[in-house]
């Protein structure tokens, strides 16, 4: 366990350094790292502080948040196919952002888009909690989440459908693919509180999730308050997913694939998987963001596209392995 955490943390740090030194500007790795601490490099310092550092930080924060939320969601629902988007927060955040783009709010106000996305996420949480009802069951939560996702998806399509000019539609489609390009420290400052609050909440659920391994009945008689666990799970997930979607758009598959890959390495225990998945999510998003910059630097490849392109075959492979294990 300790060795796994050390390995994952080490990989996060190495990828962070690679992310800082990879870019279209033709400078050596040593120069670009030195420029972070020394103003005498002029424009290079500016590039490092204004472009590469926030981008690398966002990849770590958002990746960790998504991985953590995925592990918590799978642990709570006791289903390896669960993912943070299941409660409908990411699609309602996307709806908020899409409305902001379409109405011009995103262009007229500096942080109009992320704030609209956060408002959408907030609406989604309220709706999901109201629909799921006061009991602690997981089934109503899934159904409520699916209903809200479908509704938000339909409204997003409606906005696209009625979009007055093709440029807005274009922008919406590209935004929904998810990206970390051209983000600044303002965005880091925006997502960080949501990620930290959400992460603290989700990490505190470890014990309850462990007990839930034995089912809801057994967990309850082991002193776990299911209503409380569900409430905190929804709030924590909404916080990290809402914040992440507001800043980076819809980035799928991380919350689904990362816990799945790491589960055998932590012997299946949900509480340990939380920490491991946070690091694993940071690794996967960093790799995807580095790949985006290295593969097609000139074509602005979108992050969500890469995570899905990598995630889906990986997932197929896992299904294949699971199937073989079952026979």
């Amino acid at each position, binding site marked *: 366990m300790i060795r796994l955490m050390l390995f994952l943390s080490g990989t996060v740090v190495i990828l962070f350094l690679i992310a800082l030194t990879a870019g279209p500007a033709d400078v050596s790795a040593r120069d670009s790292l030195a420029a972070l601490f020394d103003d005498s490099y002029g424009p290079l310092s500016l590039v490092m502080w204004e472009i590469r550092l926030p981008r690398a930080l966002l990849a770590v924060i958002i990746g960790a948040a998504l991985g953590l939320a995925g592990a918590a969601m799978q642990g709570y629902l*006791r289903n390896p196919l669960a993912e943070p988007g299941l409660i409908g927060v990411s699609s309602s955040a996307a709806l908020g952002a899409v409305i902001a783009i379409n109405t011009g709010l995103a262009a007229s106000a500096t942080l109009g888009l992320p704030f609209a996305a956060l408002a959408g996420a907030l609406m989604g949480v309220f709706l999901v909690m109201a629909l799921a009802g006061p009991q602690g069951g997981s089934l109503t939560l899934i159904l409520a989440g699916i209903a809200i996702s479908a509704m938000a998806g339909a409204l997003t399509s409606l906005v696209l459908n009625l979009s007055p000019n093709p440029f807005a539609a274009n922008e919406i489609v590209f935004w929904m693919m998810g990206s970390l390009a051209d983000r600044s420290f303002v965005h880091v400052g925006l997502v960080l509180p949501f990620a930290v609050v959400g992460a603290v909440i989700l990490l505190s659920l*470890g*014990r309850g999730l*462990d*007990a*839930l*391994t*034995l*089912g809801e*009945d*057994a967990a*309850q*008689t*082991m*002193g*776990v*308050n299911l209503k409380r666990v569900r409430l905190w799970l929804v709030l924590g997930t909404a916080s990290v997913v809402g914040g992440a979607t507001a800043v980076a758009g819809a980035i799928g598959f991380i919350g689904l694939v990362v816990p799945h890959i790491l*589960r*055998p390495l932590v*012997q*299946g*225990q*949900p*509480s*340990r998987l939380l920490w491991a998945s946070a690091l694993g999510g940071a690794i996967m998003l960093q790799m995807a963001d580095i790949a985006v910059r290295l593969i097609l630097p000139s074509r602005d490849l979108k992050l969500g596209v890469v995570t899905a392109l990598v995630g889906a075959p990986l997932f197929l492979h896992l299904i294949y392995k699971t199937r073989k294990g079952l026979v």
Partner: protein
Amino acid sequence: MSLLSVRSLSVTLRNRPVFRDVSFEIGPGEFVGLLGPNGAGKTSLMRASLGLIRADGDSSLAQMSASDRARAVAWMPQSREIAWPIPVERLVALGRLPHLPQGRTLPPAEQAYVDRAIERMGLDAFRGRAASRLSGGEQARALIARALAQDTPLLMADEPAAGLDPAHQISSMQVFADLAAEGRSALVSLHDLGLAARHCTRLILMAEGGILADGPPAEVLSTELMAQAFGISIWHRETENGPVFQPLEVL
């Protein structure tokens, strides 16, 4: 001092009354078998007395706070859920959760409870195996061990013997009987009347929307009560090998 006290408990599920006005007490040192035909309300009675489903009437456990209850009773539900492939040893250790302050490593004193539960259920060879990949009977034993590790005065289990081979059925019954001999108690629902006759210290027979009989096995497993509750004829003798009970025919 009673470990569980149930007073005029009634459960209604979906407007269908399951049972009415059930009262009983369980004191220390009892191994109580809960008998009854399918649908008589054995599971509902146990869940209601734990406070897991809504019921009218009083149950001492249902009135406790969740954390107090977790130190008063361990519960093994009928559905044997093991969601993740965690090793048997860690599964059993989950039983220690209610006793731990926040934090997840088990101190050595806690490990002793886990080891004892594993040894009692004969799971030593399975310690490192993924619990969700064990056979049904082995999973049941691991889950009984989990409940034992919770180390509560009362243990409640819903059909723990179902799916076990004869040797493990007998040894599990022996474990519950040993608990009773140590001054703890067990309330266990059973369908194997032969096991109930030999191992339980007391039987509660549920049928016809309530408790039909409550007493020592020799009294409850009578020809009349078995005919009334299950509609079967029986052969029940005290032999030199202890009580032997065999259901014969459907009446």
